[in-house]
């Protein structure tokens, strides 16, 4: 070796070697470090060791073991209990510095704006299509008032749900959701009932989806058929004339009639139809055949083991809502406003401003503002937890404004002189003919979005039901198939016999809202306060009133 001839290693004072460690670019070979740096004094020039001996030897072992297997082989990778805690981990840069891994939670935290957007995105469901109808049922002014009032009420209940895990002492509730809180306070009964009511909202949503998917598929098919065969449907439906046609699919001779529960099957009210059209209508019927055509498409998707593929498409929901808002604005601009204020009396074309049918709107709104079963999880990833209340309020405000915008514009722009306000359909897109291009685009968007969200909802139902009953998310293919057949069957039956999404939404909303929005949060709040000794009688009064409201909401759906 060459170094043998050099005057070896002139005696240097020991301290100098420490200062030499800092110079990485020095050409002096004496100052050069060996390639493998023993991580001792890398952080600063302290003589004291910063890295524990155990960590250093573990590092050596991990290096060595990783050479013994293929990089993808996990046989010799260190298990979790062997790796030191985050406060002992350092990240070394080859240039000789080291810094500590921050001890914060590994899950990424989102800024407020992302959390607000996530909440808005999750809450925006298909109930947006029923808001104009609900407003019509309640009356225009009363509808606006109810929307604001219900929004505030549900926001308060959402606060209660959000704060409920933190009020539980002595238990680590960091990964609890609201059903776990109910189980803590009410035992098995609480757990099971909160689960069942949560299922009601999910399965209700899935049934609504099936009805809407049949509807959109029917209309899209109809549009394509008419476009291809150049059939003009303009005279066969009762509606306005002109380019922005608005139709009344089920014209009722009695404008004061209550046809929210009615099911009129006029089908296609046109008289002159050719025989090929008749056979097309026979095979392409909104209620008779299309719900069945959807089965071979969606049932296999429901049986997938994992739903992560479908989770990628959640952005479609946002696009659909934004498109709907644009569409509504466009229609309002084209149609203009048609508003007349008749406060309590019914006229032929308009509805009173205050109607007794308003509970139907509250039922719809209970589902429209429902997020209480997953708000805790959504808020967990908020970076500044102290802003949770503010962010939730902003989210609810935005959701309320969106619903208000759509509801008010559609209601106001509905061309009343030729048509009756009473004609506003539970799905307001039904008020536009199949030949309308912009609405066709909206329907196709929504159809595609629903096809991707439907398996996600099915996965959520499956995980909760199978997890609770069998303890296993995927006990066997036949269990899953049985569950899926039940869900799909419910959807098909509803689409066949009772495709009124307004009713489905209000019933399922009122039912799940009863437990998860009104009763359980109020009770949990009162019990936790009384355990802390902070319960005051105005609070008892107010929360009992909430429970009464919830019960009244549900009962009113049946009787009004």
């Amino acid at each position, binding site marked *: 070796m060459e170094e043998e001839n050099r005057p070896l290693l002139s005696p240097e004072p020991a301290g100098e070697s420490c200062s030499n460690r800092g110079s990485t670019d020095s050409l002096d070979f004496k100052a050069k470090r060996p390639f493998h740096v023993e991580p001792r004094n890398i952080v600063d020039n302290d003589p004291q060791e910063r890295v524990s001996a155990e960590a250093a030897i573990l590092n*050596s072992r991990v290096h060595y073991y990783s050479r*013994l*297997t293929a990089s993808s*082989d996990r*046989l010799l990778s260190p298990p979790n209990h062997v790796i030191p805690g985050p406060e002992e981990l350092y990240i070394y840069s080859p240039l000789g510095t080291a810094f500590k891994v921050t001890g914060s939670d590994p899950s990424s935290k989102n800024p407020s704006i992302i959390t607000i957007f996530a909440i808005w995105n999750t809450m925006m469901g298909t109930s947006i299509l029923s808001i104009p109808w609900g407003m019509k049922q309640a009356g225009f002014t009363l509808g606006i008032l109810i929307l604001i009032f219900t929004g505030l009420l549900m926001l308060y209940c959402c606060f209660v749900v959000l704060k409920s895990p933190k009020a539980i002492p002595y238990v680590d509730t960091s990964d609890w959701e609201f059903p776990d809180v109910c189980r803590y306070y009410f035992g098995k009964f609480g757990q099971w009932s909160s689960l069942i009511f949560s299922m009601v909202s999910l399965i209700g949503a899935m049934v609504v989806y099936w009805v809407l998917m049949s509807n959109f598929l029917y209309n899209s098919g109809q549009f394509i058929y008419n476009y291809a065969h150049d059939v003009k449907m303009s005279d066969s439906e009762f509606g306005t004339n002109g380019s922005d046609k608005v139709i009344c699919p089920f014209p009722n001779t009695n404008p004061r009639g209550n046809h929210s529960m009615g099911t009129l099957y006029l089908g296609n009210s046109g008289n002159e139809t050719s025989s090929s059209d008749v056979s097309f209508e026979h095979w392409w019927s909104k209620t008779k055949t299309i719900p069945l055509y959807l089965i071979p498409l969606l049932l296999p998707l429901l049986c997938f083991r994992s739903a992560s593929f479908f989770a990628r498409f959640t952005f479609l929901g946002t696009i659909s809502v934004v498109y709907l808002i644009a569409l509504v604005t466009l229609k309002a601009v084209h149609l203009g406003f048609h508003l007349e204020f008749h406060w309590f009396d019914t006229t032929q074309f308009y509805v009173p401003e205050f109607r007794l049918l308003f509970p139907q709107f509250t039922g719809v709104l209970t589902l429209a503002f429902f997020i209480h079963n997953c708000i805790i999880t959504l808020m967990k990833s908020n970076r500044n937890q102290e802003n949770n209340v503010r962010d939730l309020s902003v989210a609810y405000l935005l959701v309320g404004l969106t619903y208000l915008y759509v509801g008010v514009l559609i209601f106001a722009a509905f061309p009343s002189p030729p048509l009756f306000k009473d004609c506003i359909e539970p799905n307001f897109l039904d008020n536009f003919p199949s030949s309308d291009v912009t609405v066709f685009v909206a329907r196709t968007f929504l159809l595609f979005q629903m096809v991707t969200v439907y398996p996600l909802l099915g996965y959520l139902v499956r995980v909760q039901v199978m997890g609770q009953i069998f303890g296993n998310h995927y006990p066997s293919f036949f269990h899953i198939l049985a569950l899926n057949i039940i869900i799909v069957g419910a959807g098909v039956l509803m689409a066949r016999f009772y495709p009124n999404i307004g009713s489905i939404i209000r019933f399922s909303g009122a039912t799940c809202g009863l437990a998860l929005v009104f009763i359980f949060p109020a009770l949990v709040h009162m019990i936790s306060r009384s355990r802390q000794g902070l319960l005051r009688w105005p609070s008892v009064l107010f929360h009992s009133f909430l429970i009464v409201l919830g019960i009244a909401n549900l009962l009113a759906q049946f009787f009004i």
Partner: protein
Amino acid sequence: MSSTAMKKKVLLMGKSGSGKTSMRSIIFANYIARDTRRLGATIDVEHSHVRFLGNLVLNLWDCGGQDTFMENYFTSQRDNIFRNVEVLIYIFDVESRELEKDMHYYQSCLEAILQNSPDAKVFCLVHKMDLVQEDQRDLIFKEREEDLKRLSRPLACTCFRTSIWDETLYKAWSSIVYQLIPNVQQLETNLRNFAQIIEADEVLLFERATFLVISHYQCKEQRDAHRFEKISNIIKQFKLSCSKLAASFQSMEVRNSNFAAFIDVFTSNTYVMVIMSDPSIPSAATLINIRNARKHFEKLERVDGPKHSLHMRMR
């Protein structure tokens, strides 16, 4: 028929999945190919290339828990497997739920040893101890050790608790190797003399195949208690890299302003590592010293060699 023609064996046995292949890979720096884990039972036949302490061949066998085909093969080949065994290392998985069965298989192995190689040394490793909570480890190991010592009579077994994630594996195997070297005390005395003569800070004697420390001498307290394992890991990684180029390394010198370290082949079974903290001593001097010492130590080994084979011929 001279039995010196047959190589003596080190048997590494244990239930399937107890960690034998990983242990062999780590100790002997063998690459584990993915497929060897996928196969049900490990059958390591006599063509193993791993030589241990010069003349011992490492054989790995799954004992118990395989399908009936393997069971039959094992039973029919029993005498073959257990003949000429120098060392039996039996691995127990501390997490095993079938303690009775494990003990039963262990006992049948011991019977076979008694019949075929009664002079074999028996070592029991209670493995995967990292899965046990720290405060319970000593207790659990004590229990197992008592049971095993009782079951092993009349043979004497030495028990160790091991885990690949702490220093216990390296220490256990170092102890095993230490007990297998026939004249280890003599080696240690000579090593100390050697170190004092050449004024080394520390002198280590490594086993050739595994770089397990057989013996060492240090003239003053060293700071890092894990330095043997670290050196062993570093050298084994270097060996792995060299083997990729079909090269092998023989000697190494590492020096900086504070120290000089020399790693060199020593005897047929060992490597030596000499640490000099006096930088004024030229390398050439140390290397000459090592070369001269080598001759002396080889003579030491050869003295016992013929005695060893004589003993076997008279069996």
